[in-house]
């Protein structure tokens, strides 16, 4: 503070910062990237440990033994599913009732804003069936949820069957302290969403559903089960939820502990753990796992049924059985035991899971990076924006005053027209953003009428069209501003002011995003920061325009699609990638409409307009 109150020393400091601004920024950027990549290096990460006392030392004994019965039940379920041509509601109700559960159903319907071509659905109508195991001598205040989606076709029969077998086994035990809800939901996430909204009596997404008849108090934790084969080779844990929310790390620890105990191979992001961290392959493997997590988290969608629970402060994870062609196989009994153990430990909880981390990245299941370790990587990127802003601020303050003194009429109050002119591009870019957010869904009917495309294509193509049309806007603003201000130096002053505003705006945006969803914030920062920090009107327009477009939010999504495909070892060609990119956009819009995912509005309403402001600067004349 003494540094700031002393004018001469302050002058030295600002001088240093402005003189060395560019080198410092470059160093910061490189340091941020290196820091981030270093997070996957095992010596820099922490080993996971169970924080929750109630789940730690008290190892429970697993006695579930009816895995074979579950498999025969799966065949029965499959037969009934085929006969019913969807979810066999009556059969499920009977099956749950005969196992001594209180059974309820909930019907729901939802009209999608436009047809979902990936899952081929538009008007969705379905029924959720759930049975409540009432814990003996418990006052219906707490509950656990086990859910298995009833998927079309051949998939997930084993999950539903295992759920029923577990229900039967659990019903005969006396030790439950929390009610257990067994939920079989139709239409995967839409069913879960309807059930959760019904349970909490809210309506945030415009779903139509019948009210729930049976409840069991506040839900403490939830497990979602996905199994499609009789034997599996490994279990995959899925944690990424809606808007990049993650469950408490203790849930992952719990899963890992039981996999270790029962000798089940467990993966995260479909990647096994490796022990050779000191080799290049080992590091690459960990980095790939972490990058996959970052990409999945950044896209803000729910990667399993569990993802929607997180909004309601219910810790949840999906357990997915994977059957690859390894020799080591695990049977249904062992999976049942694993779930039994997990549920029993969750049943022992005295408080909600809160002891461990909520913000973390996992390079492997046994290693984690906490928020304290990964935030500096983002901080190093964000500080570039602030440094540039400081630099501009200093320039704006000192040399700009000199010419304005000689100037007569306009310069008396240089700030008042300045604010106005800055406001114009800001407002115009935001209006473009609003158009990008609203028009694709609302104009689909018109687009379908006039062009030979389907509704989904119409929505995606309209979005891309508006996005591109936004690039043409700077000429408009330029002409608009030309009439107001003629003098060159004022113009220069204006662009500095606009850039300062835009830099600070972007810094705030990215900062807030990174706090909620680190991955999204970081990915946007990596692509947006270099170009936004360096952009001025005095650059070769064509070259820089190309660079800016290549580093725009839409292209970031495209790169992410390719990187993701590369990381899951399913590389795609350019045309396939383009198709994937289109479907990602439509999924993003759908996720927003169906479950309230915030990535699409964030990109359309804030990040894209902010980027447009920089685009304006490039074409500032």
């Amino acid at each position, binding site marked *: *503070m*003494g540094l700031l*109150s002393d004018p001469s020393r302050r002058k030295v400091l600002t001088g240093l910062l402005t003189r060395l601004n560019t080198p410092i920024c470059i160093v910061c950027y490189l340091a941020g990237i290196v820091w981030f990549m270093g997070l996957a290096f095992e010596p820099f990460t922490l080993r996971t440990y169970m924080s929750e006392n109630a789940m730690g030392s008290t190892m429970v004994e697993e006695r579930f033994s009816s895995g074979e019965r579950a498999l025969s039940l799966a065949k029965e379920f499959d037969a009934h599913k085929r006969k019913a041509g969807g979810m066999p509601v009556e059969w499920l109700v009977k099956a749950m009732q005969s196992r*001594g559960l*209180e059974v309820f159903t909930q019907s729901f319907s939802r009209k999608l804003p436009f047809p979902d071509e990936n899952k081929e659905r538009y008007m969705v109508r379905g029924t959720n069936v759930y049975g409540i195991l*009432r814990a*003996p*001598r*418990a*006052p*219906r*205040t*707490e509950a656990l949820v086990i859910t298995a989606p009833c998927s079309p076709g051949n998939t997930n029969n084993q999950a539903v069957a295992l759920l029923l077998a577990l229900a039967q086994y659990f*019903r*005969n*035990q*006396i030790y439950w302290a929390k009610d257990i809800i067994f939920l079989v939901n139709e239409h995967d996430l839409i069913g879960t969403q309807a059930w959760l909204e019904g349970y*909490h*009596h*809210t309506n945030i997404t415009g779903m139509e559903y019948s009210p729930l008849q049976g*409840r069991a*108090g*506040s839900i403490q934790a939830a497990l979602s089960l996905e199994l499609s084969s009789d034997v599996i080779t490994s279990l995959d844990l899925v944690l990424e939820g809606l808007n990049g929310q993650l469950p408490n790390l203790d849930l992952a620890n719990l899963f890992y502990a039981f996999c270790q105990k029962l000798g089940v191979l467990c993966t995260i992001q479909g990647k096994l753990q490796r022990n050779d961290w000191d080799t290049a392959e080992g590091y690459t493997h960990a980095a790939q796992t972490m990058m996959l997590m970052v990409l999945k988290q950044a896209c803000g969608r729910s990667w399993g049924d569990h993802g929607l629970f997180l*909004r*309601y*402060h219910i810790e949840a994870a999906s357990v997915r059985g994977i059957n690859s062609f390894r020799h080591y196989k695990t049977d249904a009994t062992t999976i049942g035991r694993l779930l039994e153990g997990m549920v029993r430990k969750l049943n022992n909880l*005295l*408080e*909600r899971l*809160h*002891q461990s981390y909520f913000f973390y990245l996992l390079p492997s299941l046994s290693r984690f990076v906490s928020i304290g370790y990964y935030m500096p990587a983002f901080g190093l990127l964000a500080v570039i924006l602030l440094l540039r802003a400081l630099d501009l601020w200093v320039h704006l303050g000192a040399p700009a005053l000199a010419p304005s003194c000689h100037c007569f009429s306009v310069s008396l109050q240089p700030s008042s027209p300045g604010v106005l002119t800055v406001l114009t591009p800001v407002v115009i870019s935001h209006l473009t953003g609003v158009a990008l957010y609203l028009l694709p869904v609302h104009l689909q009917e018109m687009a379908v009428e006039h062009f030979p495309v389907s509704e989904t294509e119409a929505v995606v193509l309209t979005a891309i069209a508006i996005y591109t049309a936004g690039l043409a806007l700077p000429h408009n603003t330029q002409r608009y501003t030309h009439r107001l201000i003629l003098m060159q130096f004022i113009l220069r002053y204006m662009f500095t002011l606009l850039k300062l505003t835009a830099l600070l705006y972007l810094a705030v945006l990215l900062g807030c995003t990174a706090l909620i969803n680190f991955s999204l914030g970081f990915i946007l920062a990596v692509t947006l920061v270099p170009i936004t920090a360096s952009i001025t009107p005095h650059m070769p327009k064509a070259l820089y325009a190309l660079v800016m477009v290549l580093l725009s939010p839409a292209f970031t999504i495209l790169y992410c699609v390719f990187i993701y495909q590369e990381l899951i070892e399913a590389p795609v060609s350019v045309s396939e990638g383009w198709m994937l990119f289109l479907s990602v956009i439509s999924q993003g819009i759908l996720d927003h409409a169906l479950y309230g995912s915030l990535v699409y509005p964030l990109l359309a309403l804030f990040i894209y307009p902010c980027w447009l402001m920089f685009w304006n600067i490039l074409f500032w004349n």
Partner: protein
Amino acid sequence: MAAHRCGLSLVFILIFSSLACHSSCDSLENANEDTEEKQSVSDTPREVNSDGSIAAEDLNERRGRSTDAELDRRDGTRTSEALTPAAAARDEFQEELVIRPLHSGDIYASFQFRTLWDTDFLQEGQKVSHYRLFPKSLGQVLSKFSVRELHISFTQGFWRTMQWGQPFIPSPPGAELWVWFHDTVSDVDGNWKELTNVLSGIFCASLNFIDLTNTVQPSASFKPLGLGNATDHRFLRYATLPREIVCTENLTPWKKLLPCGSKAGLAVLLKSEKLFHSSFHSQAVHIRPVCQDEQCTSKAWELRQTLNVVFDLYTAGQGKKEWSLFKMFSRTLTEACPLATSSKVYVDITDNPEGELFELSPATPLLSQAVVLGDRRTYSVFDLTRAETFGQLRSLNLLLRWKGDGGEMLRPLLHAERYVAGFGLQTGEIHTVIYNNHPYRAFPVLLMDSVPWYLQLYIHTLTVTSKSRDNKPSYIHYQPAKDRHRPHLLEMLIQLPPHSMTEVTVQFERALLKWTEYTPDPNHGFYVGSSVVSALVPSMVAMNTNFTQDQPLFSSFVPVKEESSYFVRVYTEPLLVNLPTPDFSMPYNVICLTCTVVAVGYGSFYNLLTRTFQVDEPSLPLAKRLANLIRRIRGVPLLT
């Protein structure tokens, strides 16, 4: 016979020792005298010593005599009762067990023990030191705190009305205590506080956590059940502790209040390892003044101890749909409590008139009909005071074997449930849903809600809707909460349309507590007690309004005023609400951070703010200063 007596005397010494636990020797002597008087069978007056052992001998003898009397009774002559003169103190003890097989395959067992204490409680200033069957610990409490009526229940579990029907005596999860004080009490709150602390000691429960922040005075929901029509609710206190966990430590003191302890009679079945291996467990103590006889010439204290338990078919294991006393309690019955005037086991066979649903063995020819909860029920009666009840094996092990499926149960006419809607830690909404399943009759219910102050109710958002139409309550009594002093109390009289669902909603905001006010496990959440729905439900059959002694205990608890309806109280589930909770594991970090910020930031800012800045003018050369001095004297403008 002699050997038999010898064995019994051993048992009785045990009984005596348990009696001695809670009644002093002094009172016991009196008790002995009374019994002698009562059963004066041409015996020489006996000198009673204060010595315990002789008293025990006495008891043995008395026991022998009572066995004789029992034998007589078995002969059907009922000599002992005929010979009993109208004594001044006619204390009485009855015990009863009702077994109701439930449609779900579970089984409901309800114990009731009723002790009548014939003493004139209305006369003030009379020191009562005369205890026979009535536990002294409770008697002293009654007189010391001028209690008119006391109801306390400890419940572990939630009564599932939709599967089990209505219980005989309902109770909310956790502990519930409501007390009517005499209208002579001046400091009701003080008495209440002391009373809860004393009861906390007697029942080994955390009743001492009852304070003004969870006590309410309901204006209409809790009327006295005994004699006298007190209506001034200033003398009523009601509190629940929804979090209270009930276990063996609460059962033991409860059993000690029984005249026979758990040594003889029905109470031998009360083994905690089985009682707490169940779906539902509830024990209660109800004390109230009642009429001694039909004419109501004299009054007496009635102590009713009830214990309700529901055993679960599935967790009992073995997969067989079959219940027996041994399977339920791991004991069988061998005798009645010798001090009891009546000791009976009832088995509800209403749904099983022809024996097609389940098979009951041993069969009993004794049948009894009772009108209970608006329904006429038929019961098989096993009278434990009769020898043939026990059969050849000298033990009674009722066996209930299900033959077919339980079938569908009639939906209970009144049913209520409650839940918290919404998410996030700022606001929420309490939904109370009340079902009237009567096909054509509407009836009013009294809904009582007591909500802790840390849920700040927005009472303007209160809505009552039935059949999607606004339902205006005819009576609303609302007492707003005072932070840290008093809970919200909301009482409403709502008319339930026939065959309808009525939803009462009110929004609330979650308060941020002071950091010392959080419980040690704040992330568990905070409990909101059950809301209480009290109603006079239209009865299917004519209710029995005349008060007779012969009625089974379970059907005579709540006085019936009119034939057409019966009183039901339904408790909803308690709520578990999460309040905004700071991260208590981080105080060290927080302290470090704040201290740093304060030290660095505050110091510098204070410095900046208080210092006055001046433009440092270069000092003038000496010649100029001198010139200025001269100029000032001359009055000419100064040089700069």
